[in-house]
């Protein structure tokens, strides 16, 4: 397996991944989006780290003509924004419990992966596994990402909060 960005041949696919994230974030979650340079991402990361909040990682595997895995890392405050954007800030009118915040991050990954596959391989059939969502202590991000956050990953800002997306195929 290799990361999407490790191969020059997949630069179009990387662009399509950016476009998929923008479409999903803007259309379904009404978020402002930006593709970040590493310095800009570090700036957003520093601001986010100040809150000390946990991060959340959605991991989604897919299979079809080829297999792959998408991971999406977001700080928990952004995950809460995703949830609020979709279901409203108020409680459900009939008093039902709100979905878990993990569900919001999982659905973000699900939509991004589906949109990317459709854009790139629209004539092929892929099956997406249900996303798994884990909490990450902010102190462990460096260990998970290695020395460079952009190593094989797409760095973005959603509503001025850092998001790291990695696609391995």
């Amino acid at each position, binding site marked *: 397996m290799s990361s999407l960005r490790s191969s020059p041949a997949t630069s179009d696919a990387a662009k399509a991944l950016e476009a998929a994230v923008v*479409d*999903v974030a803007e*259309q*379904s979650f009404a978020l402002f989006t930006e593709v970040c340079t590493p310095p800009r991402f570090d700036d957003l990361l520093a601001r986010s780290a100040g809150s000390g909040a946990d991060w959340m990682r959605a991991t989604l595997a897919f299979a079809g003509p080829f297999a792959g895995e998408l991971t999406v890392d977001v700080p928990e405050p952004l995950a809460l924004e995703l*949830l609020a954007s*979709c*279901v*409203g800030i108020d409680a*459900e*009118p009939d008093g039902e419990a*709100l*979905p*878990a915040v993990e*569900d*919001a991050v*999982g*659905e973000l990954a*699900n*939509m991004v*992966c*589906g*949109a990317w*596959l*459709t854009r790139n*391989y*629209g*004539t*092929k*059939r*892929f*099956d*997406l596994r*249900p996303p798994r969502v884990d909490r990450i202590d902010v102190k462990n991000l460096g260990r998970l990402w290695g020395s460079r956050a952009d190593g094989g990953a797409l760095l973005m800002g959603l509503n001025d909060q850092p998001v790291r997306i990695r696609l391995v195929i």
Partner: protein
Amino acid sequence: MPDGNGRRPTALTVLIVDDSAMMRAMIKRIAHLTDVPLARVLEAANGVEALQLLEQHPVDVLFTDINMPLMTGTELLREVDRRQEWQHIVRVIVSTDGSQARRDETASLHAHAYLEKPFRPEVMRDVLAQIVTSHQ
């Protein structure tokens, strides 16, 4: 939302089938934000739960995801298609998978619409409005 003759359309019972609780809540919220009269909104996390609800409640409109555990949306739609008493149900597919292969696979399952996620809320509103018009 009275029609041109001042009549109020029949309130719809909607069943939303998606393994994501957030997607179900999102669809439900959009449905409530439209002018479409809703009698009841039911929810299921997969095709098996959906079939149980369909056995218990009369449903007018079925929104279903495709990729779900236990029973997929495609399998659910095949079962709905097989049952004479459910032929009146308006079926709408809501999926991240917009591939031609998947659309071809579901083409024979009598879905009224195929909504590809992500979609803007007004797209679902328009689909519901069409259903209300055809339901009168």
